[in-house]
């Protein structure tokens, strides 16, 4: 066939003139690697628009960003416990308003499951979370003194138990609190209090309590 004429020799199947190269001209090099990640630009970019309107929109944007972080819709990732309890962290907790969605508009499955027993306790967990930590530590110290009187061995056991119990409750509290708040109004606090001998407000704090009690435990058991 006519097409095989140039065996061994470079022959184009189409008219090279049409593409714009003349015969015998040096073709550009073959590219052997992907283009650079940040290629040089030949031309400087156009300067941004400036003006009152633009400045205002810019300020709005930055404010909006800040405001969004403080809204109850911004769901914080539960942080892992840090090794050293930072003093400043206690005072930098931002107070967020509660938000209760309108359950009539949402599918039923999105409602958190009502756990009757743990309900009011978790509410109290949340309450006491937000209470000043000072009163908490004061209570904890008081409780520890009390327990010290009962005896060293017993104390560490009970503290362990209480710590785990309160942590569990406060974790669930953190998850469901904002959703459960509406449901809890019916429960009578006094009713629940009768269930056990311990006064609940003493121990409901996950983070602070854990770190504090660790330190105390170390000192206590030799």
């Amino acid at each position: 066939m006519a097409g095989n004429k140039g065996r061994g020799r470079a022959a184009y199947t189409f008219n090279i003139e049409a593409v714009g190269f003349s015969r015998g001209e040096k073709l550009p090099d073959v590219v052997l690697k992907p283009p650079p990640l940040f290629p040089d630009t030949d031309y400087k970019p156009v300067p941004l628009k400036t003006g009152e309107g633009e400045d205002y929109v810019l300020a709005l944007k930055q404010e909006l960003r800040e405001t969004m972080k403080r809204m109850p819709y911004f769901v914080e990732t539960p942080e892992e416990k840090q090794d050293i309890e930072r003093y400043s962290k206690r005072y930098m907790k931002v107070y967020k308003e509660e938000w209760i969605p309108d359950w009539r508009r949402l599918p039923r499955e999105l409602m958190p499951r009502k756990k009757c027993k743990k309900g009011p306790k978790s509410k109290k967990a949340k309450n006491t979370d937000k209470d000043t930590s000072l009163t908490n530590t004061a209570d904890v110290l008081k409780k520890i003194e009390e327990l010290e009187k009962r005896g060293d061995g017993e104390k560490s056991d009970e503290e362990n138990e209480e710590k785990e119990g309160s942590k569990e409750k406060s974790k669930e509290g953190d998850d469901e609190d904002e959703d459960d708040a509406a449901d809890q109004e019916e429960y009578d606090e006094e009713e629940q209090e009768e269930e056990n001998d311990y006064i609940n407000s003493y121990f409901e704090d996950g983070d602070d309590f854990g770190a504090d009690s660790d330190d105390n435990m170390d000192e206590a058991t030799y």
Partner: protein
Amino acid sequence: MTQAEIKLCSLLLQEHFGEIVEKIGVHLIRTGSQPLRVIAHDTGTSLDQVKKALCVLIQHNLVIHRVHKRGVVEYEAQCSRVLRMLRYPRYIYTAKTLYSDTGELLVEELLLNGKMTMSAVVKKVADRLTETMEDGKNMDYAEVSNTFVRLADTHFVQRCPVVPATENSDPGPPPPAPTLVISEKDMYLVPKLSLIGKGKRRRSSDEDATGEPKAKRPKHTSDNKEPIPDDGIYWQANLDRFHQHFRDQAIVSAVANRMDQTSSEIVRTMLRMSEITTSSSAPFTQPLSSNEIFRSLPVGYNISKQVLDQYLTLLADDPAKTLLSDLDPRHEDLHKALGCLSTASLESVVQERFGSRCARIFRLVLQKKHLEQKQVEDFAMIPAKEAKDMLYKMLSENFISLQEIPKTPDHAPSRTFYLYTVNIPSAARMLLHRCYKSVANLIERRQFETKENKRLLEKSQRVEAIIASMQATGAEEAQLQEIEEMITAPERQQLETLKRNVNKLDACEIQVDETIFLLESYIESTLKRQ
């Protein structure tokens, strides 16, 4: 959804709602509609967190729920709605220009909260306005309500779909999820509320130092106990209407640039007259006779009827824009107008990226529709080698495409015409994709810059807090000076540079978003046309 869009959605969700919501949202965007358990399983997050994230997303109209067969509820994310979050500042600014501060705050609250009842939003805005007013003055609810009603009348806010009232004699068990409905005529009906009251100023004792945990603040349970008169009627911002406004603004300013102020006023009048009557996706405005236009012109412009007719003919005869139809009654061809604006964006991108000669070739090919290589060189009056180079550069970036016209049935390359052409919708899509990528890059870079200087930022915030508290307790000038010197001069400079960079990146995002809006509107209108 393209990768660039998904990346941008992920960054926006993360900035506004945190990581958990971002994970769920991006998963839904990627995989389409899914039931609850599958989401929890695939993303590896606990059921409680998924529920919370979904509640937040549904509240903000980013995810919708649907009951499928067998009673399974599936959740679907709306990617395009997530991308709108980039435009929130622009919506708020528009509301400010149209309805001043009250309107601005109303729209801001609606956007921040997704949906709200009228009474709730009016109360909140009145409180906020009262804060900024002088001591002793309060903002009346009635004023805020009036602005709200005006917003509803001009369709800037609309009602959310409601739960249909079911009769009590419904035999079966209640459905797992309510199907929300809204009829067209109800969408802008404002409920008859008698909101009497004034905005409350926050008690100064509440404004403690932000560090103190505010647990002792009395809970606002009293508000919840009162029956809300418009319970269940939620309002949301009507983004389509804002888009319509932006589009009109763009057209008017384009006409003003091309011709003069008066013609832009005429066009603005025409657009305003068909604001509410045409739906936002209609390709043409309503036909209007020149008499009607004449009557509706703003008072300041006393031009005679003949002059108006001359202007209209001019606008109609404009070869490039062909906005108006030739005969009376005239209507505007919105699709064409958007096409012109997008083309202008494309042209300017080519110019800024490749140079003015490339832009000349691009405009040439646009005008002549199809050109051969040789013809391009001749018409553009550019030497062959350079023209070739430029054409290939644009071809590789997909601004220009090749059209093959074979002479013989076997498509032999030596016997085929290769014509260069610009396919505007496809080039617009390509540019849109690039815009999404740019915005994602801008956001990432801004986050990187902020993270790099996090320590410094925190330090400066602490110093500011200390200075503020010292000023409140009446400290001396010398002490304040000392505290200020805690930040050294090079650190101050670093902060300045950081601030400048972050501002620049933010401004870039806003301006790229304007191009995104234009291109998206154009592509949407081409889709609707088909």
